[in-house]
């Protein structure tokens, strides 16, 4: 299948004063559409930085990024917002729901950004996603009233709302108990099968990584291994 994300010679460094600190060294990496991948590596190795670059939240100092066939390293801001909204779904370590809105409204939010009047089908889709992640009982509660696991499940439903081709999940179970962690991985797998969504999941948990189809390992900003299972 075609590559949905292609990174070519990505270099990223931070400067503080006269100190220059390179976080990513000449990264070349691509992911196939519909694949289920993990990125592992110790803390501080550059995983989050890499994810943010793939999600066009952050910019590398050099290199090319292609998402769904479109070069996005030289793109105008409005188009960038559109790609983030339509092609990418984010699941962050800290779920980041909007506390002013209900669970249901949070899930619908990415759709409302391009069209403030959701159709019947769209509202049905939001309900289905809420069902899928298992938070339908609390869908009309404010986001802050949900537990950590429920909030993260809601964030996953929200990431899926616009039916994106890519889901970027940065340690999505980082601060959840082991049962919730199990539930969420099962859920991500299920979604991957059902919608053919490409998943890139950052984790520091090797057991979880081993259940994905491909493990990319990073150390000090370099890819040190890349194992495909099939």
């Amino acid at each position, binding site marked *: 299948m075609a590559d949905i994300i292609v990174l070519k010679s990505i270099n990223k460094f931070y400067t503080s004063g006269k100190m220059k600190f390179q976080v990513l060294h000449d990264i070349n990496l691509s992911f196939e559409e519909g694949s289920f991948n993990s990125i592992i590596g110790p803390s501080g190795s550059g995983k989050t930085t890499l994810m943010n670059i793939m999600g066009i*939240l952050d910019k590398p100092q050099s290199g090319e990024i292609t998402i769904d066939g479109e070069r996005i390293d030289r793109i105008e801001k409005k188009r960038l917002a*559109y790609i983030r*909204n339509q092609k990418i779904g984010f699941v962050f370590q800290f779920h980041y729901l909007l*506390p*002013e809105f209900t669970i249901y409204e949070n899930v619908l939010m*990415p759709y*409302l950004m391009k069209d403030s009047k959701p159709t019947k089908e769209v509202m049905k889709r939001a309900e289905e996603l809420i069902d899928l992640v298992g938070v339908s009982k609390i869908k009309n509660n404010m986001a802050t009233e949900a537990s950590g696991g429920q909030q993260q499940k809601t964030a996953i439903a929200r990431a899926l709302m616009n039916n994106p081709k890519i889901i970027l999940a940065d340690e999505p179970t980082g601060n959840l108990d082991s049962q919730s962690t199990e539930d969420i991985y099962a859920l991500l797998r299920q979604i991957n099968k059902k919608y053919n969504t490409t998943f890139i999941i950052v984790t520091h948990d090797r057991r979880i990584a081993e259940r994905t189809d491909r493990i990319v390992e990073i150390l000090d900003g370099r890819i040190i291994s890349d194992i495909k299972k099939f």
Partner: protein
Amino acid sequence: MSLPFKIALRFIRYNRSQSIFIILSIAIGISVQIFIGLLIQSLQTSLVQSTIGNSSQITIVSKLQGTPVSSWDGIIQKISSDPAYNKEIKYLSPSVDTPIFISEGSAINSLLLRGFDFKASDPIYHFNSHIIEGTLPTNDNEIMIGKQFAKDANLSVGKTVTVFTAKRQLKILKISGIFDFNVSAINSSWAISNLQTAQNIGGFGNNVSSIEMQVVNVFDAKKISEEIAQTLNNPSIKVENWEDQNADLLTGLQGQSISSIMIQVFVIVAVTLAIASVLAITVLQKSKEIGILKAMGLTDGKTGLVFLFQGLILGIIGALAGAGLGLGLSFMFAKFAVNSNGTPVVPLEINYFFVLISMIIAITASVVASIIPARSSISLDPIEVIRNG
């Protein structure tokens, strides 16, 4: 409902105490503005009313002082048949002024005899409501005198007086009534008769000394008087107006208006700064939410709109509350700040247009105040929020 508007509403509801603080500061500012504005306007209206409410506001006289205006009925006809003037001029009436001398006992008093067409002049001078004894002169050779003169000369209704005219003729006139115009100069020096009596005594023939007018909007008097001068285009007359004759009063009123506007401007500036600073804090507090919204694809423009809408919504609520409070204050003032006889110190006149304008200014100021926070929300980079948790 657009998404930025919806988010703005939720932000306002979620940060209840801050929203209430902003609404209160707008409401208090606007209520002060409305109260002071209405008070000063009412004060000025009552001042102008007491100065010129019972007198001629535009007066046509002969250019040569002391000479009569001839063909006055033609002039009145010309003005009153013009539909443009019909709208602007309330009352139009001729009057005859001539000096007379009344001898009582050993003293000779000099008075001004003013002859009126009572039907036409009453709306200007409100004679009927100023008569304290007797009636208006109903026949020729009857006069009405002022309260002060009646007392000084020991005269009363029904008595006759001997009058010398300026042309040294003698006339016997009967006193039909006594008036009180609340102005001692008038009460001691005016005598009032019908038009014909004054014309006879002054030797005016069929002429008059002036044509007097009151206008609908007193502050149009100068403009209208100039138009009338142009319309009549008569070299032997001149058209006077109260605004030119009371330049000092007008300067005073203007000074008062300017200081009132200054107060209002400072109130608005203070309110704007308060809104801007509270909204700026909101941007900081909401940076996490803004970051996540942008990461999900909310455009910069829509992000900025969230804060402009917050300013708009808070401004509308604050302006409505402020208008209610300001009107309430004004009514209370009119009700409780009264003279010993129960009349209000300042008769309140509610200028709803002014209230509306004040509200619009408040709402505009709120939106303007939200431009700064809107801009800082636009420049917020989501990566900062995502990275720092």
